[in-house]
């Protein structure tokens, strides 16, 4: 069909419509992604179903899940938005190195380090700076997260250490360091009740919350998260770095043959991932807690793995899956409030989603392998 026929606003003939339909059906990429979306949705539903059966088996009413989810998308949608922002950023932080076949399980540690850097900056700068202080805190958080991520990356590049173990161990170091900073170094000595928290940040530096969703703590972070996700998509699909990431992730031998430096890609992706993780830290402390609280992070990093996995490491997908998990997480806490079922069911659901979805990935791989055999080429991964 040429463009002219559309501009003239001629009624689309039935024949043309059939042609378009046929073209869509024949387009492998569209069909593959549609199939993938269908499968991920189906697997998620299977996981939710398993959890409901599990609830019924342990003597709870299984429709508690639906009651919680219902409230999370109607009355309490603000809470879902509040959770979606950090989950979206966590999903992005996981998917950048994942795409290059690098496992970053240390997102949690990078979140802590970002929060520490941001808190230190906000408490050190004079109150009059206002939003400039907040901007400085954002930069500090990104640098903090990136530097912490680079420790693991450098260990991999220079000593060839196992990245999975090193990032996991660094998480514990970061968590304990946050405890030290919050409870010792930046401790609020004047507080009536002593807890593991720093002084409050000056109010002029708080990240604004969304007035529309008041009084919940849903905040501007959701806009930042969407922007970062779109920037990541741009990097993935429109830049040289994105091409390098993709190639190193799918075919490292070819990447080396093409003169790419895999080590440099590891360092770059980890630094980017750490910077995004740092953003979660600064958003959480500056918009939600307004101070550095030792246990502010309910392991967003691991949730990010689920978000990214369900989105098949696609940034556009991350937007949707993080919204879904935001609803799920918020649905969990609503469920606990409305019914007798404890909130921890959310975590079980997430775990089962990982299990069903990661089992699913293999089916695709087998199919790809079959297709590769048919084509007789090895590049179709």
């Amino acid at each position: 069909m040429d463009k002219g026929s559309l501009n003239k606003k001629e009624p689309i003939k039935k024949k043309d419509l059939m042609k378009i339909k046929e073209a869509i059906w024949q387009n492998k990429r569209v069909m593959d992604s549609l199939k993938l979306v269908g499968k991920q949705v189906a697997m998620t539903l299977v996981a939710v179903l398993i959890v409901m059966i599990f609830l019924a088996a342990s003597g709870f009413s299984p429709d508690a899940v639906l009651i919680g989810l219902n409230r999370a998308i109607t009355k309490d949608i603000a809470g879902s938005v509040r959770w979606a922002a950090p989950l979206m950023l966590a999903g992005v932080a996981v998917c950048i190195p994942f795409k290059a076949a690098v496992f970053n399980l240390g997102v949690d540690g990078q979140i802590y380090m970002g929060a520490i850097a941001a808190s230190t900056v906000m408490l050190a700068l004079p109150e009059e700076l206002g939003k400039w202080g907040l901007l400085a805190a954002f930069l500090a958080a990104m640098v903090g997260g990136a530097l912490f991520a680079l420790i693991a990356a450098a260990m991999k590049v220079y000593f060839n250490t196992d990245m999975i173990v090193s990032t996991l161990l660094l998480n514990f170091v970061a968590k304990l360091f946050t405890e030290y900073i919050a409870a010792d170094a930046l401790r609020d000595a004047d507080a009536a009740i002593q807890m593991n928290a720093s002084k409050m940040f000056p109010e002029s530096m708080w990240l604004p919350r969304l007035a529309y969703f008041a009084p919940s703590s849903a905040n501007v972070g959701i806009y930042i998260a969407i922007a970062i996700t779109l920037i990541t998509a741009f990097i993935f699909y429109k830049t040289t770095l994105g091409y390098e990431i993709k190639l190193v992730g799918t075919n490292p031998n070819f990447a080396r043959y093409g003169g790419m430096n895999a080590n440099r890609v590891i360092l770059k992706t980890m630094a980017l991932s750490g910077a995004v993780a740092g953003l979660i830290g600064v958003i959480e402390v500056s918009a939600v807690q307004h101070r550095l609280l030792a246990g502010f992070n309910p392991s967003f990093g691991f949730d990010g793995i689920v978000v990214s996995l369900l989105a098949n490491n696609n940034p556009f997908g991350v937007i949707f899956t993080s919204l879904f998990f935001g609803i799920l997480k918020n649905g969990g806490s609503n469920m606990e409030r409305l019914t007798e079922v404890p909130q921890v069911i959310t975590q079980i659901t997430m775990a089962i989603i990982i299990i069903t979805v990661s089992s699913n990935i293999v089916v695709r791989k087998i199919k790809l392998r079959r297709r590769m055999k048919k084509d007789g080429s090895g590049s179709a991964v």
Partner: protein
Amino acid sequence: MDLDLLFNASVISSAVRIATPLLLAALGCILCEKAGITNLAIEGFMLMGSFISIAYITKSDGSVLIALLAAMLGTMIYSGLFGLVVIKFQANHVVASIAMNLLSVGLTTFLLQAMLGAQGMIRPANIQKIPNMELDFLENIPFIGSVLHNQSFIVPLAIFMAIALHFVIKKTVYGMNVVSLGESEGAARSAGISVKKVQWSVILLSGLFSGLAGAYLSSVILSEFSMNMVQGRGFTAYTAVIFGNTNAILVWLVTLLFGWAEAIGVQLELAGIGVPSSILKMFPYVLAIIVLIISSVNTKRRKERKK
């Protein structure tokens, strides 16, 4: 700082006590690693084991011995889920491990609330502990005395199992099968080894060992269960396996090193030298990271020499 503070009898004794669950979990992990399965799920298995044993004690007459057996059996069955996902559905090992760890935290917290009616932690009052070994004649021997005297019988059992595993891997047909599977799956298959059977066996055994490790942690050392109580010990055990180059005896020594790091943290905190406790608690993890770097440099050099 005088050296006595770092190497006195009580530090070594508690180092051995802390190292034992690490060693037990590491034993299963060694088998998996030899068979080419990256098993980080031992973290979750340990948590499940520690929950099952405390749950059994709370619900029954409180015998720790049967609780240990129940934990081993229960965790073995639970590890079957990991086997199903990894072997049958061929999921990525690391992703499946993360799912299992998440599931274990969620499941134990949920069951703690739903089955035992407790929030966050439980300390069964009816626990009937197995008395520690009183080996007075060993007391005066410097190292062995503090290793074995006044410890649970599981400590020598774990050491014995480490030695036994070393021989099983080196000398038996089963051990050879496991090793050859890890080296090359194709070769193992053409040699007539049933790949799936071996994979299932190592995963179930790792569940068994981790179950015992967790049960030892909860019902022998602490006599309580609290939410997420394993706190990365499974990951530390995995690090020990990597550093020990999957050699059971070496792995035992590495776990002792980690146990020592945690023990002197406690010792220094008690001595009150003014370092905040969160900084002291970092020491085992930092040590594990340093150890990881050293071991990777070593393997890298070895590979380069081979070339």
